[in-house]
């Protein structure tokens, strides 16, 4: 149980999970009374809220925050099976609705010493380096295994001012400022639609450039982007993903 810094928090008021920096060892959100959302719900700054409202808040933050970034994890970056392919496609759909979004991958969890390349990748063992280097103030994590997502989210809250969003295929993450649960490919596509709707309602024009890599490096060329805008994502992913792929009985949602 977190004891030392208890005096910093008002005991009678519910703990609000805000962007950091919260200090070297922030309390685990669960130890401060924040619970995981129930099905159909999400968390907004630690409070259980209807999932649609959470999606709208995610959209607003990603559209207005500084250097919005998507951090896809191993479950969507590697070609495990058809479902991973479909989910990866849906993640790119989200990216294509956010102007100026960066995509910085977390391909695996191995420690990187003596150094990582913070422009190119994010590592769960020192995610703050990538956040600091790219001056990221709002980000979405998707496709990470839960244990490393928890580690990463706590470290980011400890040492950066970044607002974190966890789009989780399981039960959500209480250490993220915004989180939704049970995120299969349909829910990811729904999030992309919500972002588009909110963007249009805010009068923000559609992205005119493709997503960047870290450090705002152009990864997709303007020519490729023109093709993507005219022909849809299938031109980027070299083929249409299988549609309505049924999941095997007993298969985990993220696999």
């Amino acid at each position, binding site marked *: 149980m977190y004891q030392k810094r208890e005096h910093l928090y008002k005991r009678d008021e519910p703990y609000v999970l805000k962007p950091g920096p919260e200090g070297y060892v922030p309390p685990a959100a669960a130890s401060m009374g924040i619970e995981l959302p129930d099905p159909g719900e999400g968390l907004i700054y630690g409070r259980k809220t209807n999932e649609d409202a959470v999606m709208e808040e995610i959209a607003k933050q990603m559209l207005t925050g500084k250097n919005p970034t998507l951090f896809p994890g191993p479950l969507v970056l590697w070609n495990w099976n058809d479902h991973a392919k479909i989910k990866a*496609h849906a993640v790119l759909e989200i990216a294509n609705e956010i102007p100026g979004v960066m995509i910085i991958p977390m391909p695996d969890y*191995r420690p990187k010493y003596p150094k990582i390349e913070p422009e190119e990748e994010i590592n769960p063992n020192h995610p703050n380096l990538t956040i600091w280097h790219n001056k990221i103030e709002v980000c979405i994590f998707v496709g990470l295994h839960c244990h490393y997502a928890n580690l990463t989210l706590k470290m980011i809250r400890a040492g950066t001012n970044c607002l974190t969003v966890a789009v989780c295929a399981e039960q959500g993450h209480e250490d993220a400022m915004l989180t939704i649960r049970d995120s299969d490919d349909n829910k990811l596509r729904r999030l992309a639609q919500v972002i588009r709707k909110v963007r249009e309602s805010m009068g923000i024009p559609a992205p005119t450039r493709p997503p960047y890599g870290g450090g705002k490096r152009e990864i997709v060329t303007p020519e490729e982007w023109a093709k993507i805008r005219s022909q849809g994502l299938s031109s980027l992913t070299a083929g249409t993903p299988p549609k309505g792929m049924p999941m095997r009985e007993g298969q985990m949602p993220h696999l």
Partner: protein
Amino acid sequence: MSLDYVKSTPGFEKFMPKDYRDLIDHGPFGKKVSVSQVGTFKEIMEEHPMCAGCAMTLFIRLSLISLPNPEDTIIVGTAGCGRLAISQAAIPFVYGNYGDTNAVASGLKRGLMTRFPDKHKDVVVMAGDGGLADIGFSMLMHSWFRKEKFTTVMLDNEVYGNTGGQESGMTNIGSVLKMAPLGKKFDKIDMPDLAKTAGCAYVAMVVPNNPKRVEQCIKKAVLIAREVGPTYIQAYTSCNIEYAIPTDKVMEDAKNVENDRYQFKEYISDEAKQYLGEKWGYKEYAKKAIQTTEVAK
């Protein structure tokens, strides 16, 4: 089964760091690579935080190149110098608590055999002399007694190098170390003989001076462990810091030690010989297997 799972999902190739793109395009996955081809493919371990001149790092590097199926291998390690390098390799690494590596590997291997009955998933324990011969001794021996089908590789630097130079069971008698100023009073544990007695199907003692030999030992040990039984490799990987070996003399030291107390030894059970000969085309063992059969007739 295809090797799609070591490729990135469509659309994300461009966003993957260069290191990973190289691994996908030029890595050893799904290919048969050899130590003699180093420099022509992307290795699964390149950067590491080990000390300059570390012989253990060279041995780990050679071992990882030698794995028959790196894309289907899981390494189990524990506290010590070796895990600093192994955990950075582009293959799964499980960090067992100090002493329980072989228990973890037993469960892991059994789970993989149940989950993937039609496919070989190799488990290799790679830990130091302290992790295996001292603190992990009980788990190690019992995994052998139970005939668990995985390979154990001891990175024998003959000292607790990571914590300042305490003597281990594998330190030689009389050795004076920073934290053992009176010198060790007992003999080095004879682990290869113990392994043989405990029922290992393959036992080898090597030094990293001869890369091809290291490769052959690792390949044989991993292949035999798939179906025959436990296998054990003990490698001399000096700690040039604790034994004050100048960086440029590390290989010379390994050569001297090889000529002295670490001569190459290999034991292969008859069953393992037959398996290598029949299943994996090792000609030398195929002949011997046939001869044995003829004599028996």
